[in-house]
C-alpha cells in the first residue's frame, strides 16, 4: 500500500509540474504581445536625456497610473539602463513608503494631506514632499443594456442610480435624457469597487460636487446597495457579464463596452476620451503652495467637450533633500515623463496628458529639485 501511494504522489507531482509549466508558458505569451504592442518605443528611446542617471529606483503607489508608469519605464530603462521598480501597491501604500524613506518617489491619486506633508519633513532633509501632476485620466461609466448604444446621463441621475434610488432602466428620469432610446424594464445593477480606490474617491467627489450625494467621500465606497467587485478589472468584467449593469472605471478598461455620455450642461453631451479629459484638467486650478502643484479639478464644468469625471494622479517627491544617490535618476525620469515624448506615451495608453500650462510648471519644478 505504501508503494501504491508513492506512485500516486509521483504521478501527482508530475501532473502539477505539467500544469504549472503550462501556466508559466502562457504568462510568457501574454508578456510578449505586450512588448510587441509598444512599437513606437525604439523611435522614442533616442530622445530620452539620461544625464547622470544610474542605479536602481524604487517607487510605489497608485495602481491607477501603473500602466502609464510601466510604459514609461520600458522606454526609459531601455535608453538609460536605469532599473525602475514601481510596485503599484496603492496610493496609501505609496505615501506610507515615501514617508518612511523607502522609495525615491511615490504615485498617488490624491494630493498629500497636511499631516502627511508634516511627516514627509523627516525624510526630506530641509524640505518636504510635493505633488507633481503627471497623469490624467477619464473615469468612464460603462453600461450593459441590450439594444441601447448611446446613453446620456447627467450627474443627478447618476447619483440616484448609484444610490439605488433609480432601480429600473425605463425610469422616467433616464427616459427624459434619452427620448429616442428603447429602454427596457430591466433591473439596474450598479457596480462599484469593493477595495479602497482613488477611482472611487474621484467618482464620488464628482457626484458630491454636482449632485445630491449625501455620503462622505473617500476611497471606500459608502452607499448601500448595488454590487461590489474588486479592482477596475473586476468592475468592468461585472458590467460585461450582467445585462442591466453599470459601473465606473478608467477608460482603458472600457474596451468593447458602451460608455455613458455625460450631460454637463454644455451644448452636447460629452463622451469620455483622452482629449475630453485633458480639456477638463486645463480648467483645473493649482491649489498647492510653494513648489507643490496639487490641482483642484472643476467637476461642475460646463465647458464644451470637457469630460467632468476625471482623475489626476501625482508623483510625490521631496522638493529639497532627496537622497543624493537616487536624485539624478529620479530627476532624469521625471524630466522624461513630464517632457513631450513622455506625455505622448500617455494618450497611446488611454491616459490623458496634462495640459501645457500645468505641465510647464511641473517641468520648472523638476529642474529645481535637489
Amino acid at each position, binding site marked *: *500500500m*505504501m508503494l*501504491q*501511494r508513492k506512485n*500516486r504522489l509521483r*504521478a*501527482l507531482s508530475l*501532473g*502539477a509540474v505539467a500544469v504549472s509549466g503550462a501556466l508559466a508558458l502562457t504568462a510568457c505569451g501574454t508578456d510578449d504581445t505586450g512588448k510587441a504592442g509598444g512599437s513606437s518605443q525604439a523611435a522614442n528611446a533616442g530622445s530620452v536625456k539620461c544625464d547622470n542617471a544610474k542605479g536602481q529606483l524604487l517607487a510605489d503607489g497608485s495602481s491607477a497610473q501603473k500602466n502609464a508608469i510601466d510604459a514609461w519605464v520600458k522606454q526609459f530603462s531601455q535608453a538609460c539602463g536605469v532599473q525602475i521598480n514601481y510596485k503599484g*501597491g*496603492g*496610493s*496609501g*501604500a505609496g505615501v*506610507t513608503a515615501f514617508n518612511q524613506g523607502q522609495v525615491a518617489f511615490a504615485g498617488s491619486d490624491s494630493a498629500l494631506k497636511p499631516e502627511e506633508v508634516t511627516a514627509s519633513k523627516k525624510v526630506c532633509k530641509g524640505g518636504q514632499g510635493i505633488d507633481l501632476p503627471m497623469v490624467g485620466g477619464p473615469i468612464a461609466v460603462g453600461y450593459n443594456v441590450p439594444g441601447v448604444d448611446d446613453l446620456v446621463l447627467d450627474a443627478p441621475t447618476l447619483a440616484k442610480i448609484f444610490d439605488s434610488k433609480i432601480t429600473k432602466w425605463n425610469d422616467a428620469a433616464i427616459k427624459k435624457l434619452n427620448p429616442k432610446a428603447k429602454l427596457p424594464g430591466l*433591473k439596474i*445593477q450598479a457596480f462599484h469597487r*469593493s*477595495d*479602497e*480606490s482613488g477611482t472611487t474617491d474621484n467618482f464620488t467627489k464628482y457626484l458630491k460636487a454636482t449632485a445630491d450625494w449625501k455620503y*462622505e467621500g*473617500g*476611497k*471606500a465606497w*459608502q452607499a*448601500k*446597495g*448595488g*454590487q*461590489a*467587485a*474588486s479592482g477596475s478589472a*473586476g468592475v468592468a*468584467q*461585472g458590467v460585461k*457579464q*450582467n445585462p442591466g*449593469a453599470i459601473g465606473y472605471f478608467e477608460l482603458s478598461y472600457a474596451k468593447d463596452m458602451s460608455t455613458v455620455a455625460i450631460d454637463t450642461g454644455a451644448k452636447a453631451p460629452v463622451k469620455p476620451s483622452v482629449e475630453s479629459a485633458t480639456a477638463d484638467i486645463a480648467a483645473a486650478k493649482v491649489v498647492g503652495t510653494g513648489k507643490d502643484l496639487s490641482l483642484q479639478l472643476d467637476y461642475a464644468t460646463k465647458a464644451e467637450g470637457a469630460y467632468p469625471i476625471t482623475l489626476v494622479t501625482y508623483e510625490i517627491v521631496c522638493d529639497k533633500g532627496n537622497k543624493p544617490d537616487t536624485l539624478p535618476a529620479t530627476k532624469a525620469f521625471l524630466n522624461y515623463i513630464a517632457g513631450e515624448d513622455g506625455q505622448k506615451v500617455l494618450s497611446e495608453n488611454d491616459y490623458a496628458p496634462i495640459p501645457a500650462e500645468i505641465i510647464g510648471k511641473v517641468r520648472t519644478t523638476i529642474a529645481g529639485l535637489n
Partner: protein
Amino acid sequence: MDIKTQTTDAPPPTPQPAVAEQKRAARGAGRPGDRIFLGLSRGSGILLLVLMAAIAVFLTYRASLAIGQDHGNFLTTFEWNTNLNPPVFGIAVLAFGTVVSSIIAMALAVPVAVAIALFLTHYAPRRLRGPIAYVIDLLAAVPSIVYGLWGALVLVPHMQGLYGWLDTYLGWTGVFSWDGGAPRAMLTVGILLAIMILPIITNVSREVFRQVPRMHEEAALALGATRWEVVRMSVLPFGRSGVISASMLGLGRALGETMAVATVLSPSYDIQASLLDPGGGTFAQNIASKFGEATEQGRDALIASGLVLFVITLVVNGAARAIIARRKEYSGANA
C-alpha cells in the same frame, strides 16, 4: 497506513512496558542520538508554543490600539470606515458572513466527501479508485485564486438558473428570495468553498475508512449484513471521530479562505436576510480587499478583525476536540 497517526485523533493507549521505556528516553539516558533527538523534538514543541504566543501577542497589541480608537461598537457595528474622523468599524457583518458561508460549505461538502470516501473504499471497482483519488488530490493542489477566477467567470453566470429555481419554490422562506441581481452572494461563495474543501475531507475520511479492521467488516458480513449495513454499523461508527477531524480541517480552510471569496462575493457592510442577495463579507476577504490602501489605523483595525477570526478558529477547534474526545470509545484505538 502511513498517516494512521495523523488521522485517528486518539493516541493508542500505551502498553505498560512502553511507559517505562519512554520515561527512560525522556530522561535522556540513552545514547547521544537519543539525547539529540530528544532535544530537537522538545525544541520544536516549544517553538510551536512560542510561535502561537507571538501571534496572539502581536494581534492583541495591534488590535487594542485600533479598538481604543473605534467610535462604534467593535462587535456590533455594521460599518467599516477607518478613514473617518473618528473612525467607525465593527465586525458584525464579517463574523456573520464568515460563519454562514462556512456552514453552507460544510453542509454541502461533508456529505459528498463522506460519500466519495465510502465509494472509494467500499464500492468502487479497483480500476477506478486510483484515477478518482488522483483527481481529488489535484483538486486540492489548485490555488485558491484559480478557484476565484473560475468562480467569477464560470460559476457565477451559471448560478442564475439555480437561483431562479430556488426563488420560485423556496422564495417564500425569505432565505432563498432573489431579486434577479448577479448571483454574487453567500450561497455562491458557500458552494465554491464546498468545492475547495472537498478534497481534504475526502482524503482524510478515505484514510480513516481504510483503517476499519477487516475483522469488523467480515464479522458483520458473516452475520448476514448487506454491504450498506456493514458501512452503517461498522465503518461509519468506527470512522466518526476521524470524519469529524477531517471536517474540522476543511472548516479551517473555509473560515480562512480569502482570494476566492474576494473574487466571487459582492461585499457590503450589511447583512442580507436572503442567502441569494449580494452583500455581506468575511474576515479574510475584508482584510484582503482593504489592506492595500489602508492607513496605519486601518491596518490595526484589520488586524483586530483578524484577531476575532483567530479566536473563532480556536473555539471551533476546541469544540471539535471536545466532540472527538466524547466519541473516543468508537475510535480505532479500541478496535
